[in-house]
């Protein structure tokens, strides 16, 4: 961090979850600028949108990386799918480039065979940022335990690193997916307008 003249765009990665969302901001030589979890109560999507707007206003990112919830095999809830669409619309309104990665694509970046657990992925990321995330790595989840809230940070960081590690060609390919979702957002808005309520 703190290269006086960074050569990379500032990247904001958001990983929505049941509690709120995890986020990571990368800049410069693949260095973490900010990371954390934002918990939201009440209307989670509205609360999350407010908090993401605050982060965007503070860091003014050039790229936003999100999980592709429309990808084949994605099992994200309907609420998170809607939130992702709203985040894409928000990024587009701020002229931030949106890049989507499916879970599979993220794993392909970090594992040679494309297979690995969330904890293994978190360990790799903690190894990549030992000062920042090393002490935040949660213990391995046992079958009777629910997921640690800190895993959202690692999910978000994995998305941001996936953007950095994959070549621009792969990213451009993902843009098609982004446009597909943007189209679906517009379509949903049109439908919602017809029904007299917003998305």
């Amino acid at each position, binding site marked *: 961090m703190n290269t006086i003249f960074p050569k990379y*765009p500032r990247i904001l990665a958001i990983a929505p979850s049941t509690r709120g969302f995890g986020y990571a901001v990368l800049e410069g030589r693949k260095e973490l*600028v900010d990371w954390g979890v934002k918990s939201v109560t009440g209307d989670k999507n509205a609360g999350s949108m407010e908090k993401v707007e605050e982060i965007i206003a503070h860091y003014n990112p050039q790229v936003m990386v999100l999980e592709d919830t429309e990808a084949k095999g994605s099992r994200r809830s309907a609420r998170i799918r809607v939130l992702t669409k709203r985040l894409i619309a928000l990024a587009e309104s701020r002229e931030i*480039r949106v890049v989507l990665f499916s879970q599979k694509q993220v794993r392909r970046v970090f594992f040679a065979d494309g297979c690995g657990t969330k904890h293994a992925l978190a360990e790799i990321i903690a190894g990549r940022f030992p000062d920042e995330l090393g002490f935040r790595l949660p213990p391995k989840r046992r079958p009777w335990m629910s997921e640690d809230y800190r895993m959202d940070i690692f999910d978000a960081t994995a998305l941001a690193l996936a953007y950095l590690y994959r070549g621009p060609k792969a990213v451009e390919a993902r843009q098609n997916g982004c446009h597909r979702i943007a189209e679906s957002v517009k379509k949903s808005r049109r439908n919602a307008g017809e029904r007299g309520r917003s998305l």
Partner: protein
Amino acid sequence: MPLNIVTVYDDNKFRALISHHAAGFLCSVFFVKLPFPAKVPSVQFLYPPILCSTNSLRVLRHPHMISPQLSNYLRANRKRLALSQDEVAFLLGTQSGAKVCRYEKFIREPSLETALACEAIFKRSVSELFPGLYQKVERDVAARARALVEKTDRRKPTRQTARKREALAALVS
């Protein structure tokens, strides 16, 4: 030093505003006369770095544009040490973490004493902790150095003025 080039299709409005906006982002601005509204994609192809309209102040960001530096990196460094804002405030000798929060949100600029205390806490130089502020100060100094060079050039050349010119040239570049 300018890092980015902003190409603006000019309609003779908001020139000063755009220049000011670009200066904050360390950009140099080129105003290009184009019929408005211009077809943005084709113009962007001609002027690839960045393109913005003075009408709407919309900056079409180039995917590989360089990020403008943040004013400071106190939050990242604080989080790296797993310190809370109140704890950093205690180390800085202030009453509550509210002041630290204002520094982190770029609302307030720290005093020299606070900046040096931050250097002592985070073990990073002040210019690394406050790169955005440092760049702003550096730019201002360079502008003043340019004015001083012009003033020095008008004087009779001596060994002393030659030395001075060398030092100022280093500041300007």
